[in-house]
């Protein structure tokens, strides 16, 4: 009964809040209509029409959104502005991606061209990347990801840093104070001239994360406060760029440390546990480019060193359950040659060699493994525009890892502009892709399986992109349908042999299909208020179509924790120096059992909308600029679970000041 009354109270409160919101906004809009116009940069949702990108499905996330989310992590950015579903364990906690309904290891992440997925696990923890350290982020959907590398059965995320050659001296400092004893600081110092640029960024983000919640996972149910969920993260990004005639040289170093306490599930009532995860990453890149009128030769050397320490102990029994150290070292070397003999023809060759070394050891369990792997990859690609309205692309990769050779991984793309102004186009892409097992899948003790085959996928996309522009309004969008079939999908589960530990096997054949819709509108109302609305919706049905035993009911059912529906809406209204933004991500229903059972007592994760509202003002005291904003996160105080029995915070507040100087 206690839970019933709690839910009813929350519903009533929300209804009252809705009414208040309506009144508040109505008044606000009347006030805004009276004022003058301000200009805002043009927004483009779908890919730029570069010849190298023709026939590929690429989404660029707008720099405006990067600006707006500067104090957040890439996991929050992707969750709010892209069709990618982010599975997050809570504020500050691990966040993995599901692109087009695939597994976290099927999203490949590149930082300035080098792959930074964990060679052990295959995935990436997006909560470790601050948006502040990124100048450009784009997504390559499905088979289009082969342009960057193989293995992205869902797609790839490309994170880049860029120099600003106009910068003489710039300083930017951002301070955020947030509920639950959270403080974030960001500093950026850049200087240079047209030939040399030097940029340093540092950040710190720490929180006790001790939010209150109602615990309905224990008896008796009770109001409580989240404990052991604090975190502290800090990082440094150093960039140096020079350009001399046809040569461009750059070096980047990214050091990152994160220390997190891991909270227990809501149902936990055991003795005091200490559970922590510490991550340390050092990444470096050296890049040299030689650019002529028709060609570009580029060399990229990269190093990626990661250490992940996981610790769990029971303080009362003074016993350490786990004390594992996972060390990963990856070195990569890549040569690209682009040749553009004509404006309408581009050819590209790329050869990449990587070496990964992994060492895992748990001192408490005295278990671990040491393994390494060499990977070679050769790309040949051609992009051709035979007629102004038709572009074609064909690329293929040949790859070698360990002793496995995969000779031919092709992707074919076509783009057809349906009008002369090139405002709308049809895109088609067909590809074969594969994903090699992670080193844990092969060598983890116990249960790793050295005989695993690579996951093998075929995918197809068809997209229609359009844009419409007049004096008052810009409207653009893209509608994409996709389908992919992945064989030999790797699953960890107990085998029929009866071993008590779980084993990795190529068990499933997965069929993923769906739709992605992206739209964007920019308009000016009454010559006073500029208004932006952006929406994103994705439908991804991902099911196992190869259930073997006759009693297995998982055949044809949605994979667990992957929502069929995901959407997000973003709206911004700006007037003079004031702005108001609302960002609303939606997560659809997720199943937690493979046969998608749903009953009154069996837990299905319910769909939820979150609303984050930000209001702020910019102040100009040339050459200084100040920006102050207040954000209300989870405005409707929605009670939701992103992961089974892990509490999430209700409404909370965040105050940000930004101070910038540019010479």
């Amino acid at each position, binding site marked *: 009964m206690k839970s019933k009354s709690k839910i009813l109270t929350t519903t009533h409160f929300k209804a009252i809040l809705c009414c208040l919101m309506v009144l508040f906004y109505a008044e606000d809009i009347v006030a805004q209509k009276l004022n003058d116009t301000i200009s805002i940069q043009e927004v483009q949702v779908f890919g730029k029409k570069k010849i190298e990108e023709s026939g590929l499905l690429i989404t660029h996330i707008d720099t405006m959104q990067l600006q707006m989310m500067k104090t957040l992590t890439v996991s929050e950015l992707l969750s709010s502005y892209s069709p990618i579903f982010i599975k997050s364990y809570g504020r500050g906690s691990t966040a993995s991606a599901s692109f087009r309904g695939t597994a976290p290891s099927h999203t490949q992440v590149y930082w300035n061209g080098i792959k930074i997925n964990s060679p052990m696990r295959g995935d990436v923890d997006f909560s470790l990347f601050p948006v502040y350290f990124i100048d450009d982020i784009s997504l390559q959907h499905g088979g289009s990801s082969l342009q960057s590398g193989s293995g992205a059965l869902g797609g790839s995320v490309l994170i880049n840093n860029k120099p600003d050659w106009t910068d003489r001296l710039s300083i930017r400092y951002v301070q955020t104070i947030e509920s639950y004893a959270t403080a974030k600081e960001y500093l950026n110092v850049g200087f240079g001239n047209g030939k040399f640029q030097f940029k340093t960024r540092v950040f710190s983000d720490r929180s006790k994360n001790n939010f209150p919640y109602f615990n309905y996972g224990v008896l008796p*149910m009770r109001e409580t406060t989240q404990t052991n969920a604090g975190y502290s993260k800090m990082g440094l990004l150093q960039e140096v760029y020079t350009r001399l005639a046809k040569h461009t040289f750059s070096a980047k170093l990214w050091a990152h440390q994160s220390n997190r306490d891991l909270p227990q599930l809501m*149902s936990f009532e*055991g*003795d005091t546990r200490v559970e922590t995860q510490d991550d340390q990453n050092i990444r470096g890149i050296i890049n040299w480019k030689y650019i002529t009128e028709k060609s570009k030769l580029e060399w990229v050397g990269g190093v990626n060193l990661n250490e992940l320490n996981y610790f769990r102990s029971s303080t009362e029994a003074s*016993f350490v359950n786990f004390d594992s150290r996972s060390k990963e070292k990856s070195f990569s070397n890549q040569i690209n040659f682009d040749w553009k003999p004509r404006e309408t023809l581009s050819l590209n060759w790329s050869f990449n060699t990587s070496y990964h070394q992994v060492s895992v050891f748990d001192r408490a369990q005295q278990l671990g493994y040491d393994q390494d792997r060499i990977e070679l990859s050769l790309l040949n690609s051609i992009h051709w525009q035979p007629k102004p309205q038709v572009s074609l692309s064909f690329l293929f990769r040949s790859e070698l890892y360990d002793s496995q050779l995969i000779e031919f991984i092709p992707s074919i793309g076509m783009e057809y502009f349906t009008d002369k102004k090139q405002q709308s186009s049809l895109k088609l892409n067909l590809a074969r892709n594969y994903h090699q097992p992670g080193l844990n899948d092969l060598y983890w003790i116990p249960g790793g399986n050295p005989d695993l085959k690579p996951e093998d996928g075929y995918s197809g996309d068809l997209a229609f992109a359009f844009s419409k522009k007049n004096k008052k309004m810009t409207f653009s969008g893209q509608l994409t349908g996709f389908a992919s079939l992945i064989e030999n999908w790797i699953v960890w589960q107990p*085998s029929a042999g009866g071993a*008590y530990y779980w084993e990795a096997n190529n068990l499933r054949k997965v069929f993923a299909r769906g739709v992605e819709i992206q739209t964007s509108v920019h308009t000016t109302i009454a010559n006073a*208020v500029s208004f932006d609305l952006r929406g994103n919706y994705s439908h991804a049905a991902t099911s196992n179509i190869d259930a073997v035993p006759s009693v297995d009911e998982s055949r044809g059912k949605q994979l667990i924790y992957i929502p069929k529906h995901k959407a997000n809406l973003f709206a911004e209204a700006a007037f003079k120096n004031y702005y108001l933004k609302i960002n609303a991500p939606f997560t659809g229903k997720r199943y937690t059992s493979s046969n998608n059972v749903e009953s009154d007592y069996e837990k299905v994760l319910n769909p939820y909308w979150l*609303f984050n509202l930000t209001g702020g003002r910019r102040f100009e005291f040339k050459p200084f600029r100040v920006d102050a904003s207040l954000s209300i996160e989870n*405005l409707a105080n929605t009670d939701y679970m992103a992961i089974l029995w892990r509490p999430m915070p209700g409404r909370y507040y965040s105050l940000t000041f930004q101070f910038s100087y540019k010479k």
Partner: protein
Amino acid sequence: MKVFLTILICLIIFSACKENPVDTVFFDFSGNRGVYIVNEGNFMYGNSSLSFYDTDSKRVYNQVFQARNGAPLGDVAQSIAIWNNLGFVVVNNSGKIYVIDSRTAEFKGTISGLSSPRHIHFVHSQKAYVTDLYARKITIFDPQTLQITGKIPVGNSKSEFNQHSTEQLISYKNLVFINCWSYDNKILVINSDTDQLIDSIEVFKQPNSMVLDKENKLWVLTDGGFEGNPYGYEQPGLLKIDAETREVERSFRFARGEHPLNLCINPTRDTLYFLNRHVWKMATGEKRIPEQPFIESKYTSSYGGFYSLAIDPETSEIYLGDAIDHRQNGLVYRYSRNGKLIDEFKVGISPGDFAFKKD
């Protein structure tokens, strides 16, 4: 701007909609013979559950704890023990024992603050023991007041591994035998009058289950660990130990790569049952492990199959849990003592333990 406002209002109203709360379901199993089935669920999912199967009407009630009490059972329910119309459900990774009325599934109390509890044994009306995978102690509690009253330290400082991890308990006279499974090879002997560890018996690596036969011989099944185990890996085995002298009288070995588990005994305590992909049946007088299984698993693929086993202490009927892919509701098969299938029914995720309710 109106569009913006309309969308915003619609969204907030949608988000304000909440599913209606679920009503409490009242059960009355009093007077019914039946079996409680503990469904482990998945580690760190908090989705374990309790099912009740009425053996006469062949009716199954799933999610009885959640339905009756409105709260989840917790994370990885390990075992259940019934005593004096109370059901003690050990919820391993929630570090607690939930106590229910075994006639109604109504929540009666919690024994909390445990580390990684595994099994319960009732010594008498004021004393029960709880074993633990990590705590290196046996916790003593009073089953009437549900208060923790003491502990028996079982740490082995001489070992580089976490010893002793404690599992199942069996009483013989005033002694309680406890097998130490994880990274271990001992059967501990506890004097239940003094709550003292008095002796230990060395067996093969990783004893996972044990039973006591009618001649007071303790049968111990060992799984031998796994390839790459720092504690070592050997062939699984079966041992026969005299409970009085604590001497090993006979031992059997299985082939490497086999995974025998879940040793059970029939009500007359003269026939052993265990799982090793199939169900095996062996008379206590046998000198050899049988060559043919008693109930054959039809599974030929690399997953699914028999996951848990129990013998009805009154009827000798055999209950077999099948966890399928461990991510969906499992199945329980009920066989007659002769191996004839009587019934099969769906339960929760990963059915792992059974407790028979007499009335």
